[in-house]
């Protein structure tokens, strides 16, 4: 097959699902869509530290809402219908469906695992199964691929595409594809409502999820754990745990610090639709939080760079920084929660 879907534009994003959402909706004529808006309307910001469970032999922390929710929520707010399809173990059906969509001229979002993604550098290929890319055509045996975290477009062979779409383990994609359907023109009133909904939902998620491991309470929980790690795990392993936090936090497509800047950018753009000065003030709060997340990464880096020669007081500094962040974010979300629109 030789087909390139005309009118599809590759857009680079900080986070894959935001990027897929943005470029799919823009393709369907929603030119106002930006990554921060998709992230904000989809309430992508979150925090959870799951105790006991370990990922890659380190703490299990996530800075985002569940994979797939950003796309679903943003589309729902805009009255856009979402089509999703999974194929179990049926590789042929998954292959045929994708090819048919290309033939029909519909760009399709695909959930993939990164372990077998050939264009990723080997150092980055872990068994992470919730990466997103868009297929926008096919040239012979190769799919034309827009991977939102990349500067330019790329390609994937049929064999590699099947491998990454049928990666196994937690969050196995099972050939999962998704795309918007019946996209109509969206008026400003709907965008405003979507923005408010996204803001209120984020405030609820970060302030009011029960228990002490999610939302701003989760950040405090991590802080508390960090204070214990050196005694509990020994200085070497404790350092590795911090390294894992930094990777979860700052690596491409995840983002603790990065997500705060994105949220701040979202609030700034929200002000363009809803001229309420408070949005800009809270945007500043989250810029501050993002800066502190990065500072905490630097501090953690000092510890794991040395690996052995660390002291308890170094861990305390990290823990204190997280408490400070939790407080800033709590105040920010409280302001957003109380805001009248």
């Amino acid at each position, binding site marked *: 097959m030789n087909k390139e879907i005309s009118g599809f534009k590759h857009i*680079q*994003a*900080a986070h894959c699902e935001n990027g897929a959402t943005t470029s799919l909706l823009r393709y369907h004529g929603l030119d106002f869509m930006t990554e*921060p808006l998709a992230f904000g309307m989809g309430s992508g910001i979150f925090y959870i530290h799951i105790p006991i469970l370990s990922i*890659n*032999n380190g703490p299990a922390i996530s800075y985002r809402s569940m994979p797939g929710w950003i796309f679903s929520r943003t589309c729902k707010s805009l009255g856009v219908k979402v089509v999703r399809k999974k194929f179990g173990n049926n590789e042929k059906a998954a292959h045929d469906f994708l090819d048919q969509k290309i033939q029909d001229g519909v760009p399709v979002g695909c959930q993939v695992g990164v*372990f077998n993604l050939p*264009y*990723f*550098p*080997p*150092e*980055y*290929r*872990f*068994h992470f199964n919730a990466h997103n890319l868009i297929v926008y055509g096919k040239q012979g045996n190769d799919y034309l691929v827009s991977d939102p*975290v*990349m*500067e*330019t477009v790329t390609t994937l062979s049929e064999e590699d595409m099947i491998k990454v779409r049928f990666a*196994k*383990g*937690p969050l*196995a994609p099972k050939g999962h594809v998704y795309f918007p359907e019946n996209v109509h023109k969206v008026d400003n009133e709907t965008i405003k409502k979507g923005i408010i909904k996204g803001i209120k939902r984020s405030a609820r998620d970060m302030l009011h999820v029960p228990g002490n491991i999610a939302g701003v309470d989760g950040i405090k929980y991590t802080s508390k754990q960090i204070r214990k790690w050196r005694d509990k795990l020994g200085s070497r392993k404790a*350092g*590795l745990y911090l*390294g*894992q936090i*930094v*990777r979860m936090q*700052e*690596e*491409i497509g995840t983002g603790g*610090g*990065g997500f705060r*800047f*994105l949220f*701040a*950018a979202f609030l*700034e*753009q929200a002000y363009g639709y809803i001229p309420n000065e408070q949005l800009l003030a809270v945007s500043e709060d989250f*810029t501050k939080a*993002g*800066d502190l997340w*990065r500072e905490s*990464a*630097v501090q*953690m*880096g000092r510890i*794991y*760079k040395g*690996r052995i020669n660390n002291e308890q007081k170094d861990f305390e500094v990290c823990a204190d920084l997280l408490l400070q962040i939790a407080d800033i974010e709590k105040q920010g979300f409280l302001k957003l929660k109380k805001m009248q629109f």
Partner: protein
Amino acid sequence: MKKEELPQDDSALKVMTRELCYVKDNDGKYTTGLSTGWDVKKQALDNAWEEINERVEEARKAVTNGEKSPIYYFMELRLMDMPVLSGYTGFWSFNIKRHMKPDVFKGLSDKKLAIYAKAFDISVDELKNFKG
């Protein structure tokens, strides 16, 4: 973070792409910038790989010493853990743990070995005749 403060350090990622980040321009407005990498991140990733390599080396020794079967080694080599290996093979983790015992491993059918070999992307021969 201001645009000019965006780190431009070395990273493994730069052969694939620069990373898009949200930063502030000189007027205090959000814009985007591209980063080649950040030392703090690179160090975390390097450490993670050092740790992985140590685990693989320990696994290799454990197999050579007859404490574990090659399944254990290849699981570590392919960066898998129980849930991932269980996903690729369809075996329960309880059974996988048994298959990691050298005695049980010796009795595994070729069919089961082939499933493991496929999951590890190696031949049955490589799995059976562990060379370290």
